[in-house]
């Protein structure tokens, strides 16, 4: 969808709903929201809904980055410590790699 072709109130509506939906453990939606509407929020000339859009974009970006930090931390911890945790790590794994501890 080309954002330049839709009316401003519709943009706000979209941005708001992307932000809200992100709360259902969908950090990727926040990331999309932040990138997609970044131009609208910061570069486009002023219009009425821009302030609100800016707010949603910033919060989406913050949310997405918190999520990615948390995920990254967990992935690093799990990948490096999986073998050491032994049976517990197996019990929280869906796919267990073959041939290695």
């Amino acid at each position, binding site marked *: 969808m080309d954002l330049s072709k839709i009316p401003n109130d519709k943009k706000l509506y979209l941005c708001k709903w992307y932000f809200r939906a992100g709360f259902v453990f969908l950090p990727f939606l926040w990331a999309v929201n932040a990138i997609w509407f970044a131009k609208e929020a910061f570069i486009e000339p002023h219009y009425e809904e821009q302030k609100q859009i800016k707010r949603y974009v910033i919060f989406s970006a913050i949310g997405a980055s918190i999520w990615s930090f948390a995920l990254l931390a967990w992935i690093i911890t799990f990948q490096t410590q999986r073998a050491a945790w032994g*049976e517990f790590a*197996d019990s929280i794994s*869906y796919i*267990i790699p*073959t*041939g*290695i*501890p």
Partner: protein
Amino acid sequence: MAKCLVCGYLLLFFVINLVAAERIKDMIYMNFEGVAACFRRHNGTHQFGCSSSRSGSVGVIHLVEDEDDIRWLEHNATAGDYTVVLTFSMFTRDILLRLKNANNINGVLLAKNTSQPLPEFYSPEDTCPNRYSGYKQCNDDVHVDWNPHGSSLLMEDWPFPMFYTENQTLVEAVRSCFLKHNAHDIENQQYRPLCALEMKSFMFAAINSESCIKRSDFKLNFNPTQFCDPLGDRNIYWPLAPINQDKNSVILVTARLDASSLFDGISPGAGNVVTGLVTLLATAYYLNTLAKDAVVNKTNVVFCLLNGEAFDYIGSSRFIYDLKEGNFNALGGVNLKFDDIKSVIEFGQLTEGELFLHSNNAQNDEVIKKIQVALNAKILEGSVPPTSVQSFLEERPNLTAVVISDHGQQFKNKYYNGILDDAESLNFNKSDGLATTLAKIATSVAEILYEDVFSARPFVDYDSSHLVEFYVSEMLKCYLETAKCTLFQAASSPNAKLANQVLSLYVGVHRVPNTATTLTGQLLAFLTREEVSNMTEAMCYENHLIWMAGINNTGLCINSTVNYSTAMSPAFIIDGYDMKSGMYSTWTESIWQTLSVRMFLKPSAATERLTMILGSSVAGVSFILVWFINSRADILFNSRRTVNC
């Protein structure tokens, strides 16, 4: 018209050429057929054996003939990872441990050179087999080296794959490829294409039996991967007479049924297992002929062949566990109890020469005294060799038990549990002495058992004792030369296809029935048969009897009391068993997908780099080109008519 025909032929020619062309894969690689792989096994605490990397381990071939070559590999090798090709003289613990620590070894190919004499000794087993299980374990204070030549190669986790081949064409191919491409100007070998081997033997299991069994049982995944299987198979039993419902007194005659080795599919166990096993079968046969019409009153004899004994006594420990739990009813559905066992006589490793009786609590046992006199054997009181009898004595230290063997405190067998423990090492082809010796032991023991059971001297005629020797030598042929032999054929169903090779006596995993066990069970049934005459094949099956080919391949209906029981360690059936407790065997074998070796010419590192750089550049340039064309598309393709949207 003629032109058309020519064209047609030409087309046909091209099509055939296209279809029948040698595939590029086959032009690059030479596949090795008939190689045996070292694989991975686990016990409750450790990991043993070998595994390649997931996609196969590749190494430049290096032929190792002496210690200098090893030193060169450790200090001067430059071409990255190597695959070492060894003969038996270099396949020792020291050398392999040096290779393990060298960190640039990606595989070992053990090549048997048939022109060279056999090595003096080669046993990959521990110096004290089954060190941590049984009655008299090898602790530091009781230091017994039963197997003085043992190198414990089986008890090590190797970081590289290992394969074995005795195919001389392959060995020659490897050698000539090495000499042609690798051997000359060896200091600068990294600058040219080198002959290399790729070994694929990736093992799925890891850590220890406990974790790989748990991982195999993992139910959350819809498509669970199997990681490992418990070792095990079946024990075979044959009672001389039916077991009583209530009170029994049983002399147990046992032998083991399995050997092991480092490589898949080759466990001949000639000196280790076959001699004792054949003697037991001959004893059962002879006792059955002697006792044809006699009635057992007080003592009974049960012959049993125990499986998986090389792996912490799987068969015997399960047998005893079943007896104790009251679950043992393989003999006519009657529950036999451990208390019913009066004594245990085990046939150990037997060869020509002096015999020994490793006896326990046997001072007052008439049978054992008589055996000692008949075989002119030396008694070793209180000595317990690492074999099935350990399990029985562990359960009851005051049980009367004896192991008849050819060794004293140290094995005479120089190839114990190795791939060389075969007919050649027994000198089987050159002399009939072995068959005579084993037949003599079998007849003596059978006659003594007869006396004890029936309280009368047996009627011995020359013919039947002579027949024992015939059967012994035939059985030795079956186990040592090829399974496609008279007796196995006679004991199978008519026209059964038997493999023309030496049977592997490795116990294997419990969910795959072992051919050696099946054939041995049938052979025991054949030797101790009660023939049912006037039966056709269909009638025979209808009456739940066994239809066998018989010696003349004419078909034979027999009634037999031979039966099997499961030989899987109790560790895998007891709920919540602690795998680290060391009480029962916990051996498992890893699952694998492929075992293969292939040889190819590996380009030098510089060429590999060039290929990589070229490939990446082409990819990069094409990206730029496509982007460029895309951005100027309207100029290039003059597409003014496109609709604006």
